[in-house]
């Protein structure tokens, strides 16, 4: 076979999905490359469900909001970074992970505390935990100038999802990539509710979605060996909001339109052997239109329009003082603006955030020590009504790891992190809900854990064990209490104590010759106790939507041109409000997903076909109360690399 086909040929052989990766200083879970490809997942949200220490909040279906809650602290405490720059939403503080298709993602990392590196934007030190999404970078073989991939997905929910990716080498030092996709679906699926006496099956309605994404990136290397990249991302969608299924009302008339555009760029240069600089800049524009035909105001059906702009600049600098001692200084400046149309008493806020972080790292033989101090200053102005108070805070983090045996990749690690999340614009200014007097919600995390990784040529090709135990205290928790008669309240009234264990084992044993197998088992234990008010009935009750036990299991087998994947997820019993009474009880749920993939060479093009069957045992469940999830459903994918 000609030499240039070796890469394609290699892809036709059985492969192991886990990568050999040494244990970093902070707890991390990674999905990359083949492992990511084998997941029965449409979006980043679907893939991250299988991590330990996380709960996915999923409103169901193709267009339903999907956010990740790491270690029960709440979605707003997790920073989501796309190619190293944070994805922000000052309006609601959350990133809908359901909107990021895996099509253009190369790697997903979830770090507790933070990514354990020094050279990063100050925002990298800020959140209680961080998700890093790495988009696929263009890679070329010798002499190759252009290649790409066309894929098509279809299946349940009326899914039609074509995508195209093109990579072009423009010169020795410059390459470009364009990735785009269109997702369309009627979002219809069967759901069922029963109490043993009544038993109702119906079809989810008003859940259609139409979404387009276009992304273009430039990757360059300059003569002085500095590197840069620039990226444009555009997302446009229209979707029905199917709403809660309540007695006598299975259909809702809300609709939402979204447009999101961002341009970001980064530049990295090393000066001499000691000093490295990383510059990042971003502009983001976000537009949301919301229509509720059930609410008829004097101006017609309720139609809100929200516009957000974000300007961001970051400078990060690392200096190597000695071979074992590094220091870094990062400074970020960000402006967030928001306007709203048809929203009574909206303040039109602008938020100026300045973050500065000083960090240091020591390698003392088997001990690695990282520490940083982050200063945050937030100034807020509004064009109307009351602005939030100016705010500043110093928050420290210490991370330490110890490798007791030189020959073994075994590490003991620990961290302490103090962090907070700002109240969002919705929290503070949303017409009849917001409260500008809100303070930030803060979290203190204490973590101790261990990581062990071993690769060998024997029976156990790969083995990894990760386990962490932690205690987190969240105070001044921002609680929205939707009330009666148009009166809502946003208040800093909550406090939560979280005691948790995240544990995972990944192994790749050789069970049969010629068959590569991989297994992953993850387990999460969470006691997240409401400590808001000792006089209240729910004092020390488990908080809403957090199961005490949850976990996942993945089995993968690869044989010649065939790949089989089985994924199982289990979420234990939960309560949908912060009081543990039978009225609020939600049953455990667990789903099994199966997929089969085969690859073949068509001419010299690599063709892949995947068939998935998800929720094989057709279990009906809610992740969020009254938002039914689909039962059994299938999906087919075909792709050609050219």
């Amino acid at each position, binding site marked *: 076979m000609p030499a240039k086909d070796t890469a394609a040929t290699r892809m036709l052989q059985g492969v192991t999905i886990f990568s050999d990766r040494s244990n970093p200083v902070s707890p991390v879970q990674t999905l990359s490359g083949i492992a990511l490809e084998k997941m029965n997942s449409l979006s980043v949200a679907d893939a991250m469900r299988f991590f330990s220490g996380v709960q996915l909040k999923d409103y169901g279906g193709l267009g339903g909001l999907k956010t990740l809650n790491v270690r029960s602290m709440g979605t707003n405490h997790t920073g989501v970074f796309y190619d190293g720059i944070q994805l922000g939403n000052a309006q609601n503080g959350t990133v809908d992970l359901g909107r990021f298709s895996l099509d253009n993602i190369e790697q997903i990392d979830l770090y507790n505390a933070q990514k354990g590196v020094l050279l990063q934007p100050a925002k990298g030190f800020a959140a209680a935990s961080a998700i890093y999404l790495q988009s696929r970078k263009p890679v070329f073989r010798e002499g190759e100038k252009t290649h790409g991939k066309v894929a098509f997905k279809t299946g349940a929910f009326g899914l039609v999802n074509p995508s195209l990716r093109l990579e072009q080498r423009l010169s020795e030092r410059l390459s470009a990539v364009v990735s785009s996709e269109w997702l369309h679906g009627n979002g219809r699926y069967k759901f069922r509710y029963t109490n043993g006496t009544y038993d109702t099956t119906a079809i989810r309605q008003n859940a259609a979605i139409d979404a387009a994404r276009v992304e273009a990136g430039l990757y360059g290397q300059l003569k002085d060996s500095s590197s840069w990249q620039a990226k444009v991302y555009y997302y446009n969608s229209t979707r029905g909001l199917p709403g809660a299924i309540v007695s006598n009302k299975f259909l809702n008339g809300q609709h939402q339109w979204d447009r999101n555009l961002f341009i970001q760029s980064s530049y990295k240069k090393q000066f001499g052997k000691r000093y490295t600089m990383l510059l990042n800049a971003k502009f983001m524009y976000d537009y949301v239109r919301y229509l509720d035909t059930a609410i008829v105001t004097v101006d017609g059906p309720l139609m809100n329009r929200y516009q957000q702009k974000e300007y961001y600049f970051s400078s990060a600098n690392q200096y190597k003082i000695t071979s074992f001692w590094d220091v870094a200084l990062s400074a970020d400046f960000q402006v967030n603006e928001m306007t709203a149309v048809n929203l009574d008493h909206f303040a039109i806020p602008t938020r100026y955030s300045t973050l500065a972080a000083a960090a240091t790292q020591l390698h003392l033989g088997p001990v690695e020590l990282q520490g940083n101090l982050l200063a945050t200053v937030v100034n807020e102005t509004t064009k109307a009504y009351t602005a939030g108070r100016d705010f500043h805070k110093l928050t420290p983090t210490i991370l330490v790891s110890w490798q007791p045996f030189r020959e073994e990749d075994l590490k003991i690690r620990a961290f302490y992190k103090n962090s907070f999340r700002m109240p969002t614009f919705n929290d503070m200014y949303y017409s009849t809900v917001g409260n500008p007097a809100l303070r930030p919600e803060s979290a203190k995390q204490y973590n101790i854990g261990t990581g062990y990784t071993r690769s060998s040529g024997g029976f156990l090709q790969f083995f990894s064990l990760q386990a962490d135990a932690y205690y987190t205290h969240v105070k001044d928790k921002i609680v929205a209490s939707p009330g009666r008669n148009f009166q809502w309240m946003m208040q800093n009234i909550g406090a939560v104590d979280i005691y948790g264990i995240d544990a995972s084992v990944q192994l790749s*044993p050789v069970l049969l010759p010629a068959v590569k197998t991989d297994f992953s088992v993850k387990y999460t234990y969470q006691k997240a106790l409401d400590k808001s008010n000792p006089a209240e009935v729910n004092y020390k009750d488990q908080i809403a939507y957090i199961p005490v036990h949850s976990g996942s299991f993945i089995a993968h087998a690869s044989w010649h041109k065939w790949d089989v994947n089985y994924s*199982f997820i289990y979420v234990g019993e939960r309560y949908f409000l912060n009081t543990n009474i039978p009225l609020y009880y939600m049953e455990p749920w667990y789903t099994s997903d199966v997929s089969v993939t085969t690859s073949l060479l068509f001419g010299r093009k690599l063709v892949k076909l995947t068939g998935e069957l998800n929720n094989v045992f057709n279990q009906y469940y809610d992740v969020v109360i009254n938002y039914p999830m689909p039962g059994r459903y299938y999906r087919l994918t075909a792709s050609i690399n050219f």
Partner: protein
Amino acid sequence: MRFYISLLVVCGLLTGLAACRKGASVVPGDDTHVGADSLRNGFYLLNEGNMGMNLATLDYYNSSTGIYSSNIYSAINPGATKELGDVGNDLQIYGGKLYAVIALSDKVEVMDVHTAKRIGQINVPSCRYITFYKGKAYVSSYATTAGGTSGVNGYVAEVDTATLQVIRTAGVGRQPEEMAISGDKMYVANSGGYSASNFERTVSVLDMNTFKEIKRIDVAVNLHHVKADKYGDVYVTSRGDYYDLHSKLFVIDTQRDIVKDSLAAAVSDIWISGDSAYIYGVEWSYVTNKNTISYGIVDIKNERMLTNKFITDGTDAQITTPSGIAVDPTTKEIYVTDAKDNLLPGTLYCFSPAGKKKWSVTTGDIPGHFAFVRN
């Protein structure tokens, strides 16, 4: 071989976990013995439940046994799909039937007054309150008269209490709330709550002979409750605009259909017992971002505040967010509910006529509406 062992382990794991799901069942309520009473009155309490949570529940207090039973509807009516529904907004008894207005379920649930067994439902979209006149039920609705999104005004639906069908409708103002009958006229409070920059200010007056709106009385912004007294007056509450215009109580003279008086008292709900109107107010202000809570009794004969305190033993300090009020028609015991932060089960307090706490009990979410049963 090893592969099969792994398979067995996986299957075992699955079977083990499968045992964890108990299977669907009806959520039972709780019975609490809160003390016997010599009298034979009981009452139903409707808990509103938060929007989207489908958590409207019905409680019953049997005063002859002293047993308070929570969440009785689901156990008595297990066949009702998705239980009682989403956001209970009013509860009334008329002619042997118990009517529960479930606002976001677009229905009025009709039950037998003695057994709480479901009889049927009245379909009225975005229904708010219910009242009765000469054998018919009247339900106010936020929905537009013509349906859909044409027009902005809401309506009152006239309902046959035997067939539970809507007979006809009468257009009123925007987002009408409570209604009261005085003589052969109906007074409907219009809120305009969907347009905070342009609240309604009027009470619609309907002639019950023709069932048509005959006039509007200008009162104040964002009207809510309407209660008729025995002296030919109608009491109307205004919620204010949550900024500079405060919540207030107005008195309409139904002979002349004019506002004849007003009292500077914040009123979230009102219960008339004899010559006393018991009121409480939870007034939110976007200026201070705080709730101001108040209580009081209004002498409806002379239209003046009697007192701003009817809980006399200091228990009011424990009540975070009063959400309902009632006075036993016979014993004159005072009932006040606390919705707390709206996300916790509420509390019902029973006070003696002198305002001393007799007992309290845990209710459903956002307890708010009472209906007394006489055996």
